[in-house]
């Protein structure tokens, strides 16, 4: 029996450079950076004082009065992205309330701001009664997925992936698996992250993971550039509607691309460092392509994990060269994180959205701030300017803390 084919029919994205896929795409092609000095708290004592924050997020436009206080920021971002994705897919879930539609969302840190705020209250008051009764349901990592399902009556499986920086990619991969298995027909899949809060930023700083280009925030995230010195933390959410090809045809809706393959693999190596020869990252890409039944030579484009850390960008380049051989030099690569920073648990989902738009529109967004070539990173990273390219097969890499790797394969529908 042939495998069910799964396609993307709706996209919703919320990021530091734009809200909504069209504005997001325009900003990406223009090479716009969303990295600025942190505004949500006083970061003047922090080594890295910059981030991709969503400034002036119009929460009141999306949620009725009072609702905001019952949603973590990660849930708010996910709900807005999911509403955009549903509208984009011309979907009215209330009509089709069913157990054949599920939800899966990736998030690394869930309601981080709620946790920090409530902990601060506890410490300041020394009174446990001053911790809000809704703290736990707001902090819990599965709140965004649950809030989406409750809002739209999605009674299929409701899952949350928390695998650090690969959470969003794993969510989409799992959605693909569920639809292929026949358990569901449609999935709302994505990632959300809102962790620009003092404790988390301090933790990443202590880990020496963040860029310290504080005086030129928009130039801080510089993946594959020789002077890269760490990532810029970002917040955002991306949600995709995945459904069977049959369902999309029946509904007569626009199809962006097919999700052709996925692989999840653990390096079982180190809690934060990648295995630097690239063997493990090459393995996850190879497994994903096998799943998609696509030979390496047919890959046109990779949306890299491309964080702008010294080690990630070198390892990822090594892995691509190891798997693709001479073809590595013919492919195009880019890093969405050069503009929106690293949105952690949302990154894999936002970058899958980028792949879907690239496959649909045949244009590559640039990797900005690429100014100094690194002899060890010598592939085509689409430096600084958008470029047209006839992309048929795209890969999206996501490599997370915890040795946790994911790769998605998407292709234009033939």
């Amino acid at each position, binding site marked *: 029996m042939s495998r069910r084919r799964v396609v993307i029919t709706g996209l919703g994205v919320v990021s530091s450079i734009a809200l909504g896929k069209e504005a997001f795409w325009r900003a990406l092609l223009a090479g716009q950076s969303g990295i600025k000095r942190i505004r949500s708290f006083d970061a003047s004592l922090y080594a890295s004082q910059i981030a991709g924050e969503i400034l002036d997020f119009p929460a009141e436009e999306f949620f*009725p*009065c*009072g*609702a905001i*206080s019952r949603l973590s920021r990660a849930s708010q971002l996910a709900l807005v992205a999911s509403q955009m994705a549903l509208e984009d897919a011309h979907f009215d879930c209330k009509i089709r309330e069913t157990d054949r539609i599920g939800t899966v969302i990736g998030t690394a840190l869930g309601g981080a701001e709620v946790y920090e705020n409530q902990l601060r209250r506890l410490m300041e008051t020394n009174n446990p*009664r*001053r911790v*809000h*009764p*809704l703290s736990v349901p707001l902090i819990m990592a599965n709140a965004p997925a649950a809030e989406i399902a409750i809002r739209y009556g999605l009674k299929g499986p409701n899952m949350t992936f928390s695998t650090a920086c690969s959470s969003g990619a794993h969510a989409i991969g799992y959605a693909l698996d569920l639809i292929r298995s026949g358990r569901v027909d449609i999935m709302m899949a994505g990632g959300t992250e809102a962790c620009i809060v003092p404790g988390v930023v301090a933790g990443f700083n202590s880990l020496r993971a963040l860029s310290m280009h504080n005086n030129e925030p928009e130039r801080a995230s510089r993946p594959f550039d020789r002077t890269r010195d760490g990532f810029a933390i970002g917040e955002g959410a991306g949600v995709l509607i995945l459904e069977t090809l049959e369902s999309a045809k029946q509904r007569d809706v626009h199809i962006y691309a097919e999700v052709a393959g996925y692989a999840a693999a653990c390096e079982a190596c180190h809690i934060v460092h990648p295995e630097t020869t690239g063997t493990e990252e090459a393995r996850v890409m190879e497994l994903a392509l096998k799943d998609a039944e696509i030979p390496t030579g047919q890959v046109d484009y990779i949306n890299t994990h491309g964080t702008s850390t010294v080690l990630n960008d070198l390892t990822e380049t090594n892995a691509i060269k190891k798997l693709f051989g001479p073809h590595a030099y013919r492919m195009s690569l880019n890093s969405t994180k050069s503009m929106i920073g690293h949105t952690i648990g949302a990154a894999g989902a936002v970058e899958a959205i980028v792949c879907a738009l690239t496959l649909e529109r045949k244009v590559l967004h640039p990797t900005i701030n690429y100014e100094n070539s690194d002899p060890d990173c010598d592939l085509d990273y689409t430096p600084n300017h958008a470029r047209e390219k006839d992309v048929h097969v795209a890969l999206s890499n996501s490599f997370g803390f915890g040795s946790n790797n994911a790769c998605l394969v998407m292709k234009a529908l033939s």
Partner: protein
Amino acid sequence: MMTGESIEARIIAGLAKIKKTKPETIQKQASLIEDLAIDSLDTLDLIFQLEEEFHIEIPEEHQLRFCTVQDVITYVQERVGQTVARSA
């Protein structure tokens, strides 16, 4: 000093926030459960807000007295009055 009216307005505003509605839609005679559909989580939220806002502690047994919006207003007015009287 808090007046009876300001206590009333603040409680109604708090309930409106919990119910995601406008304060003018909340009637003082309304039953919390039957008219406003306040559930157990809403009740916890309400108690938390009242304790926070009026600097009182509401023992669990007192919460059973809250049937209508007016019951809550009366209770808080009494408790805040006691606090003021004690501190006078």
